[in-house]
């Protein structure tokens, strides 16, 4: 990829050019991957223009790590409210959904593609944010509060890598950014809307399989730096507990290792390499458990911890 291509973002494409490129396959850089979107229906163009404007364009002939296509729908079907359908590489129907869920389904489709295929990385289930001192991994099962915390931190001086995918490069042992829209669910939406007034949300999408969902768009600065990896410094297992005082406690390495291996996308698939990578990751970092209810206070504790590690 050339520097010029990196600087050209979806925002720079005129509406007609966007529609033309989408018809034959519009490619975007999303972290280390190229994602190809295809559709003739202007609804996808509108969705991408609204929610992905700062993602860099990739050349038309670049290899696509993931392909997401929105199937055509006739006016009659649209009028009758028939479900929309997206397909992936195999051209089968990946998901059928009400039209208003398009953004959520694009994101879930991309999750599926990467989780199934990006085995050139060790993929753990956890958010990642970074400061100049290094990167912090936030592993957690769904509901632990990692997306909410990640969403807050990315507005308060931390660089967004991901709210869900921890990508570790086996050769360099560096963490790779994969900045995406952050899907906040149910109560988390109002929490971030209240705590981060400047947050830029997509539409509130009710009645998805995860309840009410709204996507938080990463700022342009996070996307401009999507190719800058960082070394892992901290592993923090977050847990939102209503009313709790912020509390950081150390986690023994063995316990951290066990939790990480139990909550990974491709640990088993990578075999002995996965074992060594997770073990080395634990050895290279310090591990903590975080109980929190106040996002600002949690940020203060985590920032101080990261700074102390650099001293």
């Amino acid at each position: 990829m050339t520097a010029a291509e990196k600087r050209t973002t979806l925002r720079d494409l005129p509406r007609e050019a966007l529609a033309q490129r989408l018809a034959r396959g519009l490619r975007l850089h999303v972290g280390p991957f190229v994602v190809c979107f295809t559709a003739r229906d202007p609804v996808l163009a509108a969705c991408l223009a609204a929610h992905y404007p700062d993602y860099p364009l990739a050349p038309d002939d670049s290899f696509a790590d993931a392909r997401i296509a929105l199937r055509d729908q006739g006016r009659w079907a649209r009028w009758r409210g028939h479900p929309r359908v997206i397909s992936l590489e195999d051209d089968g129907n990946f998901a059928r959904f009400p039209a208003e869920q398009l953004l959520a389904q694009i994101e879930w489709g991309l999750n599926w593609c990467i989780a199934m295929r990006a085995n050139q990385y060790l993929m753990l289930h956890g958010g990642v944010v970074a400061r100049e001192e290094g990167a912090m991994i936030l592993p957690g099962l769904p509901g632990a509060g990692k997306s909410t915390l990640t969403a807050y931190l990315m507005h308060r001086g931390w660089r967004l890598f991901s709210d869900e995918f921890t990508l570790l490069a086996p050769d360099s042992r560096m963490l790779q950014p994969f900045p995406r829209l952050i899907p906040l669910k149910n109560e988390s939406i109002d929490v971030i809307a209240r705590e981060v007034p400047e947050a830029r949300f997509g539409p509130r999408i009710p009645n998805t399989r995860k309840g009410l969902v709204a996507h938080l768009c990463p700022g342009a600065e996070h996307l401009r730096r999507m190719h800058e990896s960082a070394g892992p410094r901290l592993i923090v297992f977050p847990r939102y507990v209503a009313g709790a005082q912020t509390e950081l406690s150390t986690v023994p390495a063995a316990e951290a290792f066990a939790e990480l291996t139990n909550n990974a996308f491709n640990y088993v698939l990578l075999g002995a390499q996965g074992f060594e990578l997770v073990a080395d990751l634990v050895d290279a970092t310090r591990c903590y458990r975080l109980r929190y209810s106040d996002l600002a206070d949690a940020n203060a504790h985590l920032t101080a911890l990261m700074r102390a590690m650099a001293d």
Partner: protein
Amino acid sequence: MNATSPERRWRADPAARLVWRRWGEAHFAFDPRSSQTHFLNELAVELYSQLQNAPLTADELYRAVLARHDIDADEALREALDATIMVLDRLGLIVAT
């Protein structure tokens, strides 16, 4: 003949080619054959290590552990040892000769 009968000799399965990592008293062994990660305590690791050196019966293992740690006969240790042999067998890390 049960797993810890006096006649049965055990040895570490040489095909296992385990990959190890230790933090304090916690040992993890990755078995590439099954892609399973095993969490083993100190006793399990000691028995496995002894059985890498030579095939032994449960009685011989018990005496070897007593001698190595210079301790007297201990019924609780013996029970733990027998249970651990069965676990190592079930995980496929040791085999009867």
